[in-house]
C-alpha cells in the first residue's frame, strides 16, 4: 500500500532498544479501583498479569470468550487506555508514562485502529473520514485527498468517495475504517471484532484486506470468528484475563 510520511519525531521510537513493536510486561487492568479513601468494593479485574510481545510484521489473532478481556487488551495495545499495573511499551515508549495527549500523538504516528462498530463520523464523507488523521498531521488538502482516494481505491471503494457512512453498507463502512486505520501508514494495526457486524462473504473480504495489511506491518486482531484466528500467523487465547498461546 502507498505511503505517507507522518511526523514521527514527537514520541521516541524505541525500536533500537527493543525489536518488539509491542511489549506487555505483567499488565493488569482493574476497573472500578478506588483512588481515595472511599472504596465501593466493586473492582473488576479485566486483565491479570498479561505478558506478550508483538514483533514487526507479525499477524496476531486474539481470541477468547465474551468478557475475557480482549477489547481491554486491544485498548491497552493501542494506547487508548493505560494499565493499572505493569507496563505496555509501544515502540519502546511506556504508555503509562505518557499523558493523554502524548498517547494520542503516539497513535497518530504509529497506530491504526479498526473498531467493530466502525466509528466513522456520520457527517463526513468516506474520503473525509479516511483523511481525518492527516489533518492532525498537517498534511495539505490536495495530498489528503490523494492519499484518502488511493486507499479507498485499494479497499474497493473508489466509487464511494463522497458517500457518507449512512449511505454505505456495513462491509463498506468497515472498509472505510480500514482505510482510515492505514492512512497514517502505521507500524501497528489493531482491529476489534472487525467482522463482528458483517455477513460471512463481507467478513471474508475484510479478512483478505487485513491479511494484505499484515504484509508490511504488525496486526493484532481480536475476534470470536475462527476464520480470523486461522488467518493469523500467531494465535493468543485470553481466558479469565490471562493470555496463553493457542
Amino acid at each position, binding site marked *: 500500500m502507498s505511503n505517507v510520511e507522518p*511526523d514521527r519525531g514527537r514520541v521516541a521510537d524505541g525500536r533500537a532498544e527493543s525489536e518488539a513493536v509491542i511489549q506487555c510486561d505483567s499488565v493488569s487492568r482493574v476497573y472500578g479501583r478506588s483512588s481515595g479513601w472511599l472504596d465501593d468494593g466493586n473492582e473488576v479485574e479485566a486483565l491479570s498479569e498479561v505478558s506478550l510481545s508483538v514483533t514487526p510484521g507479525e499477524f496476531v489473532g486474539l481470541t477468547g470468550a465474551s468478557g475475557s478481556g480482549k*477489547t481491554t487488551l486491544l*485498548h491497552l495495545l*493501542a494506547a*487508548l*487506555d493505560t494499565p493499572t499495573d505493569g507496563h505496555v511499551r509501544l515502540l519502546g515508549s511506556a504508555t503509562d508514562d505518557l499523558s*493523554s*495527549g502524548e498517547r*494520542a*500523538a503516539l*497513535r*497518530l*504516528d504509529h*497506530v491504526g*485502529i479498526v*473498531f*467493530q*462498530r466502525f*466509528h*466513522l*463520523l*456520520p*457527517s*463526513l464523507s468516506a474520503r*473525509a473520514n479516511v*483523511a*481525518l*488523521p*492527516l*489533518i*492532525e*498531521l*498537517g*498534511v*495539505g*488538502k490536495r495530498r*489528503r485527498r490523494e492519499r484518502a482516494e488511493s486507499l479507498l481505491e485499494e479497499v474497493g471503494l473508489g466509487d464511494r468517495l463522497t458517500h457518507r457512512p449512512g449511505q454505505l453498507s456495513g462491509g463498506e463502512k468497515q472498509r472505510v475504517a480500514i482505510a*482510515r486505520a492505514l492512512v*497514517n501508514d502505521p507500524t501497528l494495526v489493531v482491529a*476489534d471484532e472487525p467482522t463482528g457486524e458483517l455477513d460471512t462473504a463481507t467478513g471474508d473480504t475484510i479478512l483478505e484486506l487485513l491479511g494484505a495489511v499484515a504484509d508490511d506491518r504488525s496486526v493484532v486482531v481480536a475476534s470470536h470468528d475462527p476464520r480470523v484466528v486461522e488467518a493469523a500467523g500467531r494465535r493468543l487465547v485470553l481466558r479469565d484475563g490471562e493470555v496463553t498461546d493457542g
Partner: protein
Amino acid sequence: MADGSRLARWRGLVGVAVIRLWGRLTAGRRRRTWLCVVGIAVPVALLLVVTSVSIGLATGPATSADGIDYWLTPESNASSAVTDVGTTRFAGTHATAARLSARDDVAYASPMLTELLAVEGPDGGTEYLLAVGVVPEQGYGSVTPVSSVQLSPDDPYYAGGSYDGRWTGSMVLSEAAAETLDVETGATVAPRRSASDRTFTVVGVSPPKRAGVSQFPVAVVRLSELQAVVGADERDAADRLLVAAPSATAETETALAATYPNAAVRSRGELLVERAADEQLPLAMAASALILSLTTGTLLVGTTFGFEVAASSRRRAILAAVGVSGRSRAALIGLETLLLALLGGYLALIVWAGGSFAANAVARWRFDTQVAVFEPWLLPAGVAVAVLIGLLSVPYLLFVGRRSAEEAGLG
C-alpha cells in the same frame, strides 16, 4: 510541525467544523442546533432593535424649534423650549422681539405663547388643543412643534399694541388635531374661551416633527390672536422668546441676558447638553440591552449547545482514537461554536430588519413618525456581539467537552 502544516491543520479543522455544523443543522437532532442559533439571534436582534430605537431617540431634532439659536425663558420656566405651560411669563413681548430683531446680529426673534385651548369644531363638539402662538416669519416656519409655513409673515392683529388690527384667523393644525376635531383645510373652528365671536380657519394640516409632541393635538396661530383668545393681550404675555442669531457674539448674549431681569438664556449648545443628559436613558437602555443579550445569549448557547457537545462525546472519542489531539478537539468545539454564533448573528440581522420595520410601522401608525433608525455600523456590531456570545460560551463548552471525553469507552 512547520508553519505551513500548521496552517493546513487549521484549514482542515475549519473544514471539518463547517461540515459537522452543516450536518447538525440539516440532519439528526437539528432542532437542538437551530435552537442554539435562535438562542443567539433573538437576544442580538433585540439588542439591535433597542439600540436603533435609542439612536433614533437620541439623534432626533435637538428641539422642535429648528433654526433657533437662543431661548429666553422666565427663570422658573427655563427647562423646556416648547411645551411647558408655566405661570411665569414675559410681558411686552412684541416690542421686545421687535427690538431684538432690529439688531444686526439677530436674524429673527419671536415671542412664543403656549396655552391649552378648548376648541369647538364644525360638528359642535369641543376638543382641547395645545395652542402655540408666534410671530411668523419667512424661513422660520419650523420654529413651532408643527410647521407653520402656511402662516404668512407678520402679526397684523397686534397693531402696535392696540390689538385691533386685521384678524387673520389662520390656524395650522397637526394631523392629530385635525383628526381630533375631524376637520380639513378650510374648516372653521371656534375657541370657547373667546369673549367675542373670533374664529379660526384651518389653513393647513402639518405632520408633527417629533413623536412626543404628536401625541397632542397641536394648533399654531399668530401670537396676538392667541393672546386675545386666552386673555394674555393685556400685558402682551408670552412664555418665551425665540431668537435666531447664527452669527451671535458675546455681545449678543449679553444683550439677550439684559432683555428681561431673571430671564434664563439658553443657547442651542446648552440645550443640546441638557438634551444629552436627558438622553442617558436611551443610552442606558442600549447598554442594558447589550449586557442582557450577552448574558442570555451566553446562557442559552451554553446550555443548548452544551447538551449538543455532551451528546457528541462519542464522536470526540473517535477523533481521539484516530490521534486527533485534545487541542484540535477543543479547537473543533470552539470553531463550531463560533460558526454557530456567526450564523446566529446573520439571522439576528434579518430579525432586526423585521423588528425595526415593525417598530417603525407601529410608530408611524401611533405617532406619525419613525423611531428606529438604520445605522450601517450596527450590521458588523450585531455580528460582533454574536461572536462575542460565542466566545463567552466557549470556555464552558470546552469544560463540558473535557468532562465527556472517553475514548477508552469505544467498542
